[in-house]
């Protein structure tokens, strides 16, 4: 009982309403995020629509190996995150923390892969500007979008990793009980970052392969 009352915060009347409120809040935030990425998608769609050949040529230089590995890593992390959320609802403290740590590791693995991939891209001269490796000017549009979109995605993922790390510490030290409504928000946000990546995978790595 005291655990429950500890999890309820001002101004909420009870834990159920609070969970619902956090869920609604995070979804409202994600609707906002959809439009944040949406502006980039619109840019991508317009530029690709008018430079289809250049986009195919440019995209074939992306590292699909890293891209695919990263997609699998993120998909897996979503599953461990779901397990963490369900465990927290069932008040399984140890399982929650373990699943979160696993999620954290997968997220860090993604960033590590991404770093290697960025390194390769730079080495191959795929940073738009003087000395860009490809000939046709509109190919730079694709790579401009590549850097911006994956960069912003990586920042989102890093934020997710940071939050998960903090939550793990708070759970371990028992500062907040695991059934706290925090998990609801953290999990939903994490899945969103995963969902964005799934779309990016199709827009960045699978173009111009055939």
């Amino acid at each position: 009982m005291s655990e429950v009352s500890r999890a309820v915060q001002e101004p909420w009347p009870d834990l159920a309403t609070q969970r619902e409120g956090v869920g609604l809040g995070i979804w409202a935030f994600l609707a906002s995020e959809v439009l944040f990425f949406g502006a980039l998608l619109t840019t991508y769609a317009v530029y690709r629509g008018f430079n289809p050949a250049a986009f195919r040529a440019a995209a074939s230089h992306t590292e699909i190996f890293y891209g695919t590995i990263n997609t699998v890593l993120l998909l897996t992390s979503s599953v461990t995150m779901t397990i963490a959320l369900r465990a927290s609802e069932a008040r399984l403290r140890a399982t929650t923390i373990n699943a979160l740590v696993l999620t954290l590791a997968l997220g860090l693995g993604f960033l590590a892969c991404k770093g290697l991939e960025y390194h390769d891209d730079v080495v191959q001269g795929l940073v738009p500007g003087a000395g860009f490796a490809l000939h046709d000017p509109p190919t730079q549009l694709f790579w401009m979008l590549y850097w911006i979109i994956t960069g912003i995605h990586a920042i989102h993922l890093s934020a997710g990793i940071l939050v998960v790390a903090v939550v793990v510490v708070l759970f371990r030290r028992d500062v907040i009980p695991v059934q706290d409504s925090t998990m609801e928000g953290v999990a939903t946000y994490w899945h969103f970052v995963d969902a964005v990546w799934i779309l990016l995978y199709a827009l960045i790595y699978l173009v111009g392969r055939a």
Partner: protein
Amino acid sequence: MTLAQWTTAASNYAVRVDHLFWLLVVVSGLILLVVMALAVGFMIRYRSGAGAPRGELPEAFKHEVEIGWTAATLFLFLFIFWWAASTELSALSPPANALEIHVIAKQWMWRFQHPTGAREIDTLHVPANTPVRLVMTSEDVIHDLYLPALRLKQDILPDRYTYEWFTATKPGTYWLTCAEYCGTDHSRMAGKFVIMPAQDYARWTAAQPQGDDLAHEGAALFRTLGCSGCHTPGASVHAPDLHGVYGHLVHLADGRTVTADDAYLRDSILLPDKDIVAGFAPIMPSFQGVATEGDLVKLIAYLKSLGTGQAANGPTDQPARQPGARP
């Protein structure tokens, strides 16, 4: 300067715009008057302490009133939209024989190039009662050619063409100025817009110091920039023959078909890999940074002089060719 140099409506289109404007002034003036009269009337009649009936109104009545003024507003607005839209649509397409003048804007001046090769800075002479089509581009930021006497504005973009056309009717000296904020001296990027009777215009252009007309200068550039090395029938390099290409349909390597208009030719010179003509290898280098905006105008004029394709009245002479227009 007189105010008339700004406000005179110097074309039939401008007169139509003024009609629409005054219609709107009258309509919105009446609405404003009604709103004000009701507000003041209620303020007096129903002021606190005044003896006036204050009973509730029946709900059904309220409902009908709401529906009533919603419908009335909607129909009025649709009427205005219809009027405005038809004014816009009536001026969409320039006639095929329009006189083509090139406009190049840069911080903070205007360059105008007439088909005869006459060119001027910060002053634009046009013949009256003759359709004129402006083909405009910018060398730096976005500008906007504002011709107040014609009620016309059109943004001018770098690396693109935008278009504008009009048939001026009232000879006189008016203003032209930049209407899109473009930096420090935006407000000084102004000049004169001179509408002259057609014969005066002809005399004026004849009197201009002019070497060659645009097409001849373009022909010279075609050689000095090295275009002719490939784009001549006998060249060793396999490149498309450009005779009669202008206005012609071009089949591209990826299966699309485009019309060779100003925007296409410009892109082909600057972004040669974008639209590869079917049957040719993408070997042409980009002339980005080699050919200036002025050079492009001349080159395209030269290509036009080589004869136009079957679609002479077609796409190029279509209205308001927009920037971003992609073949």
